């Protein structure tokens, strides 16, 4: 399958720079913490996805290749999410 051209790599690089500038700008703007956290997580995820899709060529790979990074990531995230009720309980008891 055709890989990206240098032009595509430069375009992705431009997006990565713009998203990094947005991250720093959001922090400096002094917005409410909830909005900052949401925006930062969204931009970080977008940057990671752009690198994985274009620089690591995952966009051009088959489903089997997606499973290799996807499954451990999913299991790790589920593990973290599974601990959140415990955190909420702990914080509620502490209040």
């Amino acid at each position, binding site marked *: 399958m055709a890989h990206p051209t240098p032009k595509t790599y430069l375009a992705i690089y431009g997006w990565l720079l713009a998203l*990094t500038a947005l991250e*720093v700008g959001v922090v400096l703007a002094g917005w409410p913490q909830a909005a900052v956290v949401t925006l930062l997580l969204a931009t970080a995820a977008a940057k990671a996805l752009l690198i994985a899709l274009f620089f690591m060529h995952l966009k051009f790979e088959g489903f089997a290749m997606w499973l290799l*990074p996807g499954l451990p990531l999913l299991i790790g995230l589920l593990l973290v999410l599974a601990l959140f009720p415990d955190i909420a309980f702990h*914080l509620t008891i502490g209040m």
Partner: protein
Amino acid sequence: MNHAVTVPLTRTGIPDGKLGMWIFLATEIMFFTGLIGSYIVLRFGSPAWPRPGDVLNTTLLAVNTLVLITSSLTMALGLDAIQRGRARVCARFLLLTALLGCVFLGIKAFDYQHMWHRGFTITTNLFGNCYYLLTGFHALHVVGGVVLLLYLWGLTLRGRLTADHWGRIEYGGLYWHFVDVVWVLLFAILCLV
């Protein structure tokens, strides 16, 4: 550019080297997801947590992010060059990528020294513990990446990697981009949020 022409196919349809690298990266994903997940659990489970912006040098860390993102671009351009048969251009991009990795490590070392002198050490509090542990493990991965890049640079200069044999550069690139992805996430979650 056709992937199948230059790399011999296997029973899985995926070159062995690429499959091996992705399996290795899967273990690395579990490693860093565990570390970052632990940080998130500790942070949300703690009633009080310092604001990263008050403790860390965010400007320095943002510069480091730019350095690592730029190194990902040079790595990708290096792979593109070798696929087009331009081995010397590829070698230059590989060396540039390794140098950018060294710049990242230099800035990190300066950051650690600066933080340490300001009294923010690994034993200061839970945040200090997490910061040095996460960024330290990441920096060790960058060191490994620089060594790998210099090895690939040497192979390319000696004519061992060509337009017909560029698989190892692609696999090395996968590792380097992964290190970049981890930093992108660490920068947002650990240094900004």
